């Protein structure tokens, strides 16, 4: 039987209020999984079912060949994240999950920017790249490709700087994150 138990239509304001509850701080989840087919689908499905939008997702091998690490970032209020991590724990192929605290974490992502640059502009672009400790990895007559690594904030700041030059393409890997100190992530 449908909810609520009346024939009153649900107002748009109520729907809006329900949606607004779903914003909060960014979470970086670091998930160790058994390297088996379908694991990523199971993880992604848990988020999709709850209407969560995964902002970034990276998957890669670890020091143990049978184990992979998934790092994903999501926007979510504290409570729903708690429920989703509990559900993640229930996945048989998931070994360990950490909701990383930004202060105790070193996070990096890699980005490639293809920017229009001919003549005069090229020098200015390269100066900006240098300030951001970026590397020019390709130069043609009309464009340069710049590689930047760093936190999401830094990448976004760099993007703001180069956009006026004519940003042709940008590619980002999504964050990987490792906990600080001696303990394992």
């Amino acid at each position: 039987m449908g909810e609520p138990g009346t024939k009153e239509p649900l107002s748009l304001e109520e729907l809006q209020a329900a949606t607004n509850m779903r914003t909060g701080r960014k979470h970086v989840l670091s998930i160790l999984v058994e390297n088996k087919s379908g694991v990523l689908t199971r993880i992604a499905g848990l988020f999709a079912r709850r209407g969560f939008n995964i902002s970034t997702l990276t998957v890669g091998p670890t020091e143990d060949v049978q184990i992979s690490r998934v790092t994903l970032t999501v926007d979510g209020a504290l409570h729903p994240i708690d429920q989703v991590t509990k559900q993640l724990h229930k996945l048989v192929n998931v070994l360990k999950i950490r909701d990383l605290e930004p202060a105790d974490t070193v996070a990096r992502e890699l980005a490639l920017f293809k920017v229009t640059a001919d003549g005069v502009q090229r020098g200015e672009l390269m100066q900006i790249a240098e300030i951001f400790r970026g590397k020019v990895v390709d130069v043609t007559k009309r464009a340069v490709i710049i590689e930047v690594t760093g936190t999401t904030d830094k990448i976004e700041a760099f993007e703001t700087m180069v956009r006026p030059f004519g940003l042709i393409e940008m590619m980002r890997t999504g964050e990987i994150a490792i906990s600080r100190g001696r303990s394992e992530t």
Partner: protein
Amino acid sequence: MRAVDALMECLKAEGVDVVFGLPGGANLPTYDAFVTGGIRHILVRHEAGGGHAAEGYAKATGKVGVAFATSGPGATNLITPICDAMMDSVPVVFITGQVRTELLGTDGFQEADTLGITMPVVKHSFMIQHPQELPRAIHEAFYIAQSGRPGPVLIDIPQDLSRAEIDYEPVTDVRLPGYQPRVEGNQKQIRQAAKALAAAQRPVIYAGGGVVNANGSQELREFARSDRFPVTCTLMGLGAFPAGVGGTPDPQWLGMLGMHGTRAANYAMDEADLICAVGARFDDRITGKLSEFAPRAKFIHIDVDPAEISKNVPAHIPIVGDAKHVLAKLVIEYRSLGADPARLDAWWSRIDGWKSKYPLGYEDSADTEIKPQYMVQALCEATGGEAIVTSDVGQHQMWTAQYYDFPEPRRWINSGGLGTMGFGLPAAMGAAVGEPERLVCCIAGDGSVQMNAQELATCAQNKIPIKVFIMNNGYLGMVRQWQELFWDGKYSHVDMGEFPDFVKLAEAYGVTALRLTDKTTLVQDMKRAIAIEGPVLVDVRVTREENTYPMIPAGSAAREMVG
């Protein structure tokens, strides 16, 4: 030996004595192995029937049920039972055929992405990629299905791999580093819970299906009797605590709680200062309006699944562990505190006041017409309350929960979480196969029963002696009730008329059938039907427009119960 022959060996090693299924192209090798495999296989008429039968078997026996289907449509027909088993935590292993590996992903004949389609509704699933993996996958599937919070596990086997030769060696261990269910419960938390209970003035034990799943009914009873704790059960927990013995209600029993629960149970939850939830998940059918649910209470929440704790209602004392282990320890801790039972006197006089003021009741007919509530009471009398009873979903399900007094767990088998129409008949079939010594009755709705009526053929062919009592009001009754109460009485597509003629239908399937219309002889007539050998269908004509009461309208608080 072939992988499928190893499959038979693995099933036997798991103690499987019977499975339900239907063959097709992609599982032909499996069915070839059944010929000499030494496993009893019951051929169903629709895969959904087989899936629900496996659920009924599992719920009645506590063992793992097993259902087989072929690829594509065979597997998609299993989706409802799989989802049902997930919602009600039923241990079932589903084994599906898949197209040959070279055809995977090519839209081959009868290909469906079974693993992908079922992923959100399984506890776990395996796609066999090498025939040698099969034995381990089978054993891991059984282990996962029945441990921790039970649930459905699916194994999808491509046809070519299933007939491949393998070196079979019995598997005696499982390797699941990411799966370690905790059943014991934290001792410190348990002590905290005991202290809170000893201090409580208005406690209530709220027990759910998790108590039944953990075989913790005995421990629950001991816990309740360690003081004079009032006990209420959810729809899934009925029987975990006895409703009564020989028609005398148990003094500590409040009745079922929730949308169609008793006022005593719902009002007690509303006024409680401490609620001890065991193996229950604060479903919306229990809480009603969440913000007004048990506003004065603190919560102890005992559950084997950590994700259930504080999901809907924040727990003050969370305990991760199964009902059997935790309650056994809780009783010891509680007894050591020597709490004074007299502190509950005022609470009990309030509860007893509700019990005597608001008993379950209905207005009986003045003539011979059978009221649906009376039909359930009559069956309870005719069976001495000793039958396993299954049901479909709707009004008849709620009336059965209200009026059939279940003395023991695993006697009441129904679809609670998913609310699957068509569940009752095949579930009864599975229960009867699993518990051949016990009378198994199905109370079905005339709407619901048509969704899996084809399994009457399976019952007739295999002489499975279930007794199906159709509560026939010619309506999709619960929907009709909601349209009457909440949608201005405008009936939209709920009138089923007098179709089909259930007596003729049953007879066509080779099942003995009767029609009952007179309440004065109902108990005797039911006894007569039960005494008939083999499967029997009884078409019981009841009052057409009767409403299920009492009721908490959806989204309302317990205090707002009507009827």
